[in-house]
Structures are given as C-alpha cells and as structure tokens.
C-alpha cells in the first residue's frame, strides 16, 4: 500500500485505474476534468489498459458506456453539473438496462447564473434514475468507494450503476494523504467483470425492445426496486469485507458521529460533515450534546438507520446543500418520509451553501444552537430555513 498526496479527482482516477475498466468514455467539464486527464495520462503511459473514447458530449459518454458495458466490459466515466443533467436520459437507460456502470460526479452548481462551485442539486436531481448514490467526505473515501461500487453493482442480484460524489474544489482540487491500495488486493476484491448478458453474434439477443402494457415492463421495474433493496444488505456486507482486506472500515449507508445521548443530531451529505465533526467536538467540550449522521448512500436511502438514529435525540436538523423548489430540500423530505409514523420529534430543514457558499464552523455553531433550542422547546421555529442569506440578521 502506497501513501500518496492526491486531490479528490486524482483519487477518483486512481479508484478507476485500480478497478480496471476496459472502456472509459470521457468529456471535459469543470471541475471534473482532471479526473479524465489523469486517466488519459495513465492510459498514455501504459499504466492502465483501457479503450479511451473522447466523446463529443456527456450524453454520448453515458451512451457509449452503456453500449460498451452491454457488449461485455467494465466501464467508467466522470462528470459534473450540466454534464450530469445532460446525461439524465441515459442514466435512466443505464439502470433500466441493468448495467453496473460506475461514474465519478463532482458536485457543482447548476446555471444560471454560471457557478462552478459546489452544490448538490446536480446529483440530487438524479435521485430517481435508478443509480446508487454515494456522497464522499474525503479523498480516501472517493477512491475506496469506486472499488466498492464495482463490487456491489456487478453482483448479479444487484446489477445497478453507481455514482460517487465529491464536493467541487473542497475535495476535487484539494490534496490530502490517501492510501492507494495494492493492485493485487483490488484485483482479488473486484474480480473480473462477468456480464450477466451481452451482445454476442453467437447468441443473438435483443436488448431494450418495444414492450406492450401487458408485457413485463412493470415486472422489470419491480426487479430493479428489489435489487435496490437488496443493495442495502450488499453494501453493508461489502464494507465489512473491504475493512477485512484493506483495513479501512466504512459505516455502510450512514456514518454516525457522537450520536449517543445527543439532544440534537444533524443529518448531512458530503464534506459539510467534516466541519460538523470538529464543531461537534468543540460544542461537546462546552457540554452541548450534539451529534451527526452523515448519509453516505442517498440511494438506496437508509431509512432503517434513520429510524434508529431518531430515537437517540430530541430533534433532527437536516442540512441540505441543494433545494427542491416547491417544498423542502431532498434530504429533508426523504428523511421526513422515512420517519413518518416512527417519530413525532421535531425535524427542521436548513438550506445552506448553495453555489459553493462557504460553510464555516461559525455557521454550523449557529445551526447547532438553533437545533438545541428546538430540542429543548420541542417546537420548530421555521420548518424550512435558508441559512446565511444576504441581509438576514438571524445568521449574520
């Protein structure tokens, strides 16, 4: 195992390299570009043996991955923001075709106005595409998650694609020490790609043909739903197996941090969790009992874990780095949906950091203080609160 200083994007490229996809389809977009640049470098230097298709759009990147994977090889691609939303049609195609493609996504804000900084709307908006979604907290997790994603997704009882998110710049362009596992260990862990079906002139099948309402369209979708449910168990199992081989233990679908005996627990996805952990330590020193639940997997959604977590505190504060216009942000509505009938504790939505606005420890301290007040009073002051808007004195 080698210790390297890698950015999030380099970690993603290493995760791909170690997993040995045979086809990589690549199209540049800030802040993802350095992933596909690094992969190009690996291939150009003979360090990675893959066909590299320099497609003319992200839509074609996903289409090429779909076609290649359906032909019988492992594939990889990466994108951000507008590239990801351009892919939307093909994302649904990939999962519907039951192709366990793995993709890195660097979370970036959607225009207008143009912004290249972090914001999770791009991937949150892909919630319903049938992809598994992992939100990373650090560069090590970016690399390790790619390896685990291939192992989980390619199981024949799962056969679903996975996107692994990193917050733009906070991870994508920030270097930290990362353990790069030995190739042999990854080879053994991920294994050879064994397609469940493929395009083959010797066994000429058709994939994706027309189907009538009385045909098994609904059954195909039900099987996907079952596979996504099955993936919950598989993810828990694979993270255990990963720990045995690589010595790093990931917490399955949700990471809990100091949730025991907490009065208030913050629920969040991505790098805000790192800042929150420091803030929690500081607040605990002062006797403020706060904790954190970091959602690693937004899909499949960890509803069982959340039903246990809510028992540990008097309230939950759901912190979203995106917004779903019309009613509440996605993590909030999902969490509330999962907890309906399982708790009557107050739950509040905090909308933060859109377009890459910095989430400082001070901001989180204020949110935790607000959460603790709600925990004490048992009353939610505002159901959905946008934090730190210009001119809002509550948060200045």
């Amino acid at each position, binding site marked *: 195992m080698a210790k390297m200083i890698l950015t999030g994007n380099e970690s993603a490229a290493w995760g791909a390299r170690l997993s040995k996809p*045979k*086809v990589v*389809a690549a199209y540049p977009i800030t802040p993802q570009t350095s992933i596909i640049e690094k992969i190009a470098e690996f291939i150009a230097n003979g360090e990675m043996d*893959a*066909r590299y*298709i*320099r*497609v*003319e*759009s992200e*839509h*074609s*990147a996903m*289409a*090429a*991955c*779909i*076609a*290649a*994977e*359906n*032909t*019988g*090889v492992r*594939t990889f691609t990466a994108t951000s923001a507008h590239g990801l939303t351009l892919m939307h*049609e*093909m994302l649904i*195609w990939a999962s519907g075709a039951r192709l366990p493609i793995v993709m890195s996504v660097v979370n970036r804000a959607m225009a207008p106005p143009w912004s290249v900084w972090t914001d999770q709307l791009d991937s949150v908006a892909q919630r319903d595409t049938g992809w598994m979604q992992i939100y990373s907290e650090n560069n090590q997790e970016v690399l390790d998650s790619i390896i685990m994603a291939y192992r989980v997704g390619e199981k024949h009882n799962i056969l679903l694609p996975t996107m692994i998110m990193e917050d733009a710049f906070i991870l994508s362009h920030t270097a930290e020490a990362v353990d790069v596992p030995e190739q042999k260990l990854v080879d053994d862990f991920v294994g050879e790609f064994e397609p469940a079906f493929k*395009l*083959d*002139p010797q*066994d*000429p*099948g*058709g*994939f*994706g*043909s*027309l*189907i*009538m309402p009385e*045909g*098994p369209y609904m059954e195909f979708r039900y099987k996907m739903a079952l596979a996504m449910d099955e993936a919950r168990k598989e993810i828990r199992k694979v993270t255990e197996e990963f720990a045995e081989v690589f010595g790093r233990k990931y917490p399955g679908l949700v990471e809990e941090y100091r949730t025991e005996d907490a009065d208030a627990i913050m629920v969040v996805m991505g790098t805000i969790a790192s800042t929150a952990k420091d803030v929690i330590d500081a607040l605990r020193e002062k006797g403020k009992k706060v904790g954190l639940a970091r959602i690693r997997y937004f899909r499949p959604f960890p509803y069982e874990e959340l039903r246990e977590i809510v028992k540990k505190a008097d309230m939950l504060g759901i912190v979203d780095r995106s917004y779903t216009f019309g009613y509440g942000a996605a993590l909030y509505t999902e969490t509330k949906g999962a907890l309906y009938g399982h708790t009557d504790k107050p739950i509040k939505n905090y909308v933060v950091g859109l377009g890459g606005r910095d989430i400082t420890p001070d901001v989180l301290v204020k949110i935790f203080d607000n959460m603790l007040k709600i925990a004490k009073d048992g009353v939610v002051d505002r159901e959905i609160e946008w934090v730190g808007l210009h001119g809002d004195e509550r948060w200045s």
Partner: protein
Amino acid sequence: MRHLPIPEEEYMLPGHTACLGCGATLVMRYLLKALGKNTILSIPACCWAVIPGVYPRRALEVPLLYTAFEVTGAAISGIKEALNAMGKEDVNVVGFAGDGGTADIGIQALSGAVERGHDVFYIMYDNEAYMNTGIQRSGSTPMGAWTTTTPGGKKRMYKWEPKKNMAEIMVAHKIPYVATATIAYPEDFIKKLKKAKEIKGPKFFQVFSPCPTGWRVPPNKSVEVSKMAVLSKAFPLYEVEHGKYRITVKPKKFVPMKDYLKMQGRFRHLTEEEIERIQEEVDRNWEELLLKEKITQGETHEI
C-alpha cells in the same frame, strides 16, 4: 441465367411489423445479407425500433442494442471499443437509424463517432420524414413535401427548404467511405456494402427508403418510386471512397422530376412553377456531382 450478387442467406425473418411496402425492411434485409451473421446492430428510436416486433419476439437473427434517439453514433463507438478491448475486432458493428435520428437529433453523436474514426458502419435509412411518429418534417424531407408539420393550409406551409445533404456532410468528415444506395438497386447496394466491409474506419450509407404510408404511394410502388428517384436525379447513386467520387448508376435517359413527384401524394399540391424550381435544383445537384466526380478522379486539368 444471369447471376445476381445477392446472397441467399436470410438474417431477417418473417413476422416483422412494418407497414405494407416499407422500403426500410428491404434495406435491413439486404444489409444483413451483405454483412452476414457476425454483426451487431444498434438501432435508436425510429420505425426500426418497432419493426423487429414486440418483446420477446424479434425478426432478426443478429444481436441488437436498442438505444435512445440521439445516440446511435455513441452506441456503436461503445460497442466497437468494447469488442476491441475483448480482441473481437472482426465483428461488423452497425448503427441503423432513420433520417431524423441521423440528420437531426443524432447528428452530433454521429459526427463525433465518425470523426473519431471508429471502424463501424452507419446506415441512414432515409424515408425523408419522422415516419414512426406519423410523418413529421425532418431536415432530410425534400423540398416541396407535405408532412403533418408542414401541412400546407391556406399559407401553403410545405417544406420549402432544401433536403439536408447528409452524404456530403459525412464526406466533409474525411471518412474513408460514403455511399448512397436504394432498394431498387440491390446489387449496387450490396456491392457497396461488401466493398465497405474491406475498408477500415467509419463507413456511412445514406439509403433512400420509400415510405408508402408517409409518401402517399401505393405499397406496391415502393421499388418503382425508388427507381424513379434515381432516374429523375432526385436521389443519385454514388460512392466516395477516400475522397474520390464515383457515380455508380448513370441513367442513359433521365425522367422528368414531374413524373417522380406525380407518383406521390405528398407532392400533389405542387404547381408547375414549383415543380420547375425543384427540377432546376436536382439538375444543379447532378451537375455538381458530375463535377466532383471529375475533379476527384484526377481530371482537374480539364476544367
């Protein structure tokens, strides 16, 4: 008896769901006869997404990846590169798309694919409108045609813009082989396919493919209207091999455009002046083609 160079093998089976007289079925049938069993097809949204039949039936004996409307170019790129990665370089990979999926919504992915130089076939079966959705104008609809989105009306809102020339757009990509073909000349089509099979790199075919339903032509006139398109210069048959043009069917005697147009209900509204204008357009195109043939065959000093 004269020997026809059309292989006897059939990879398209009875039981397809195409309309009566569908030209696109013959395009597929000849294509597979020429390329044989060692072929993988990718078909986007188009008539041919429906013609093979409803799941689980399929009137084709080659593997088929159905895909989204605009991605045929990307799909065949992915299939080909996956096969290359597996060391199966000898499989024919074919994108088979309609004119809308090629000239309009799929032109970006096609342009990318051929520019990258993948060793693939792309067959555009050109029925000159969005026929699967019920006869809407495409960029490949010819001048003067009625469609449901160019319905005429009091303002005579027909398709007045010239037909987008996909073959020439492909030639501009400097790919090794571009050809036009049609179902009335199957020997010509199959000969071109067999030649293309020996050429490495992207191969593009624009195949004129009559649609009796959309063109308002009796189903038994498909082949005839296809022949008339060639004889009237509406759809010349030629190939461009490494930049060199060769007109493969040069009619000894041309028929007037009027005779070709009159066969089809979609042109019934045209006035004598409009037909004259269309005649001038095809005459000019033909002259241009002759000139291109002359220039690229190395006879530039003569002009």
